[in-house]
């Protein structure tokens, strides 16, 4: 009786391994898509630093749309926040 159970378990293990092998064979040509890549070191792709700089520039641009009094008030608020312990 126990031999039959072991036989069944063994069959399931072998079938799973066979399925894994089949998937590995099928995935092999699909993985070849990653063989071709683009060199991004000198391209137009932005780094994190570039993105941060652009965001800072946008912030300044937004400030330029405000009146002088509003900008002064914002700066005073920022100084107060920084000065707080």
């Amino acid at each position, binding site marked *: 009786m126990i031999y039959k159970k072991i036989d069944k378990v063994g069959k399931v293990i072998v079938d799973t391994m066979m399925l894994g092998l089949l998937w590995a064979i*099928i995935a092999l040509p699909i993985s070849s898509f990653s063989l071709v*890549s*683009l060199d991004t070191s000198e391209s137009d792709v932005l780094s994190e630093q570039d993105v941060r700089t652009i965001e800072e520039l946008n912030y300044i641009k937004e400030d330029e749309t405000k009146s002088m009094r509003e900008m002064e008030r914002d700066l005073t608020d920022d100084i107060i926040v920084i000065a707080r312990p």
Partner: protein
Amino acid sequence: MISRTLVRLIDQAVVPAILLLCTRLASVIIVSYILGAKFIFSTKGFVFHNPDNYIAVNSFSTLAMVVVLGLGLTYILAKALYFHDTHISPKLTTKLFRHKMATLIQSSFELYSQGVIWLVYLYLVTIVAVILGIFGVIYDWITIVSGSFCAITTLLLILDIEHELDEIDSGYVEEIAPLNNNLEKEDNDL
């Protein structure tokens, strides 16, 4: 006892896998040479500096893979539709035997295992093409061509399976149904 279907599928998956891999490598080199695209072959694979060249090479090598899969599937579908052992005409069978091409006549198990593997490859390539198309790394029309191939080949394979099922049904009606009728008659007589 190992599953016969799984062994058969693994057996059938090896040849198209090698063929597709070779097609991808060869097409990248050939298309780069034709377009005059410069690339570096490093541990990352083929690295291109020009984005336009990268997109063109990626697109045409994907197209080459789709064409190879299309040709393979056409051959399998031709065998399934015309040389299937369940519905090949006697005249064509004689012709094939006369020209020593009897290997073209195959059973449903052989044909459908081949068809399923090649179709799975085509579906996977199409899925990858769709993803690459979304990211703008290949031309959109490549995705459309790949999807169309997928739809047509799936439809033809389904048609053959339906034809096969009809043959089985008609075989049942011709062979089993008269026997059942005879048995019913004998029961009624008794």
